[in-house]
């Protein structure tokens, strides 16, 4: 076989070099890998939370209003932001930059709404007396186990840590999207898609944070 014939022959298969085996560019693959990695940070925190919760008396203090209502609306915001984000990516794939920018701004709006609601919720809990290192005094008496074991102040610790880290991700995501929106004309479609990946990932994490932190901690007055 001649040199050229051989060389031409090689790129045919995915894994033989000279091609992107996944048909995915560097940045997109890199973002996927980052997402894998970051998911593990969150997994470690959520597993740590579950570990501690399973070995302690855990308060279940969230009332329907404001906590559950707020967090549900927040979930709704994030889900909707994901929808607008796909629309943005979709528009960008059609080359419609104006639309794409509009949808990204919509995404940022929902993201910010999430942040604001979350901060209000934090503030509310803080004013109730919840701290990373202690529970409000009335929770302590209310959620003590029948045998007298006190509820764990780790509630506040895990709550603030996990939601805080998530909030940080939403915040950086919003900034990231703002940059993308601002520079949209100079960016390629793939860049928009990648920012979308990050944003959906933030949404995805919340899909675990919400049930584990909020739903599992609803005050149904069973005690």
């Amino acid at each position: 076989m001649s040199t050229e014939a051989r060389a031409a022959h090689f790129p045919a298969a995915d894994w033989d070099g000279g091609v992107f085996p996944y048909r995915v560019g560097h940045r997109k693959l890199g973002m996927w890998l980052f997402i894998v990695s970051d998911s593990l940070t969150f997994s470690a925190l959520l597993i740590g939370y579950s570990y501690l919760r399973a070995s302690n008396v855990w308060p279940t203090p969230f009332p329907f209003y404001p906590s559950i209502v707020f967090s549900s609306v927040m979930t709704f915001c994030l889900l909707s932001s994901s929808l607008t984000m796909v629309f943005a990516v979709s528009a960008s794939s059609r080359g419609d930059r104006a639309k794409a920018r509009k949808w990204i701004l919509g995404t940022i709006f929902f993201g910010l709404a999430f942040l604001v609601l979350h901060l209000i919720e934090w503030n509310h809990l803080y004013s109730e007396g919840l701290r990373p290192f202690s529970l409000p005094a009335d929770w302590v008496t209310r959620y003590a186990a029948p045998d007298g074991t006190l509820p764990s102040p780790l509630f506040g610790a895990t709550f603030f840590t996990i939601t805080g880290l998530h909030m940080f991700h939403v915040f950086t995501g919003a900034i990231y999207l703002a940059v993308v929106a601002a520079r949209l004309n100079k960016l390629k479609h793939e860049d928009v898609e990648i920012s979308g990946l990050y944003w959906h990932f933030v949404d995805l994490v919340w899909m675990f944070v919400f049930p584990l932190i909020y739903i599992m901690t609803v005050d149904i007055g069973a005690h």
Partner: protein
Amino acid sequence: MSGETHEAVHRHPAPTGFIRKYIFSLDHKVIGIQYIMLALVAVLVGMTMSVLMRMNLSWPGTNWPILGTLFPGGAPDGMMTPEFYLSLVTMHGTIMVFFVLTTAPQGGFGNYFLPIQIGAEDMAFPVLNMLSFWVTLVGFIVILSAIFFSGADSTVGPIGGWTGYAPLSALPNAGPGQGMGMDLWIISIAIFCVGSLLGALNFITTLLNMRTRGMSLMRMPLTCWAWFTTAVLALLSFPVLLGGGILLLLDRLAGTSFFIPGGLYLSGILSGTDERFPLHTGGSPILWQHLFWFFGHPEVYIAILPGMGATSHILSTFARKPVFGYRAMVFAIFAIGLLGFFVWGHHMFISGMSPYSAMTFSILTLSIGVPSAVKTFNWLGTLWGGRIRFTTAMLFAIGFVSLFVAGGITGLVLGQTSLDLPMHDTYFVTAHFHLVMGVASIFGMFAATYFWFPKMCGRLMNESLGKFHFWITFIGVYCIFVPMHTMGIVGMPRRFAQFTEYEYLKTLHPLVVFVSIAAIATVLAQIVFYFNLVWSIFKGKRAGENPWDATTLEWTTASPPPHDNFAGHLPVVYRGPYEFAVPGAANDFVMQTEPEVILQAVGSGREGTSGNGHDGHRH
């Protein structure tokens, strides 16, 4: 598609200014060298600490006037206090594991040679690459500063061992060494996690997406497989440590109690009864150990895999013979990487972990010895029937095999739950991990340095000095670390500032002194290495493109390679990486880029490319 690949080419033109060229460089080669220099500095610090530790162990009460000036609290009047000794152990372990063995093999040599060996012009994300290095450097500066900061009372660094077990590390009031130094230690580790994680995703993307034409997976040099697997391990294990580190830092700074249980009583104060010791309750010290070792065990393979890769590569090159069982080697690397995630519990047998989990971990632990053994046998197979050229690089590679066997094999003792009862936290463990990590991995790096130095600097290192360095180091490390097994069997505990308290340890005194002397001699021999390194940069014999008659892509380009590695045209690969001694070929080595093998008369009509790595699974 190749259109897209080419888009990536020339993304950054060769810089001209000094700063962009050598300091904030985007060139993977410069960044690789920066990583190696970081490791060379870090290892000096680590070695100095190890000598101080040995002096204190064998001649307690030695006076070090300079220590007295530098650390008035830790070594008043130059005499080392126990807490200072322990902070040295902590810093020694941390610096060696993180800033030497996670930087040089992967960030250093990997960065420099992975793109070249797969025929790429740079890493996939040059800017990220630069960031990884600078983040790591910041981590190093933070950890160095840790030893100068302390709680209010005395100047000692963190005391926690490189494992930082909570609640000791989580309680600022748990004695000297738990002050600000510990905060800095944790922060440094967290920073390091971020740097490594970014580096890892860069490596993976580069390797998957940027292989040149013809460089199929099974034609990659084993070094690339090793770096790739290492990167996957780093990508998946560092985030878990990062999570744990955040929690530990919060325990210290925000008063949370993730790792701190209730009812603690420290220095006369019950937790929660005094503002100096706020209320902590409900946390689990074992949770920290899980999070740490979930990272920690993959980490030790992160430290050794690149060394294994380099060893395979160099053994084959200088035995002038293809790697024995290339496929088996790849599978073994992969198996080690995968199983490496299943065994972390073997560090926790006696931690109060569930005894049933311990049993499972134990059996999985011994299983991981199998791929390691397969690698060892294949190394021997590679040497078998070779025509070995004893260059310094080869000597170190052979030394690697010897030391890896010596160290790995005691893992089979430690890995059994029952036998870990007497062995845990004794010098037997210290011996085990120094032989595999402290020296086998380091030997891998030495081999890599001697082997690739001509490519990086265009000049050969001095072979006579190199051989001298090898002999002293090889014999030296056996003398340092083999007697430690015996100490462990007698029952000498680790992390003891002095052995004077115990009668049953008295019989070991001669060994302790012997080890210290050997350590000092070995460390002194490293001066030769450093000298050789610096001297050869300026005065070494000029190396051509391919001084070792090697086959892989880095030897097809100039030494040192031009900014874009291949001066404009990417190579095309036609065969596997280790085509030495091909019967009938003109030379005893066939480059990967050589399209046709010129068969001489002897050739029995056999196609010279049977080593193309496909082993018949294609076509």
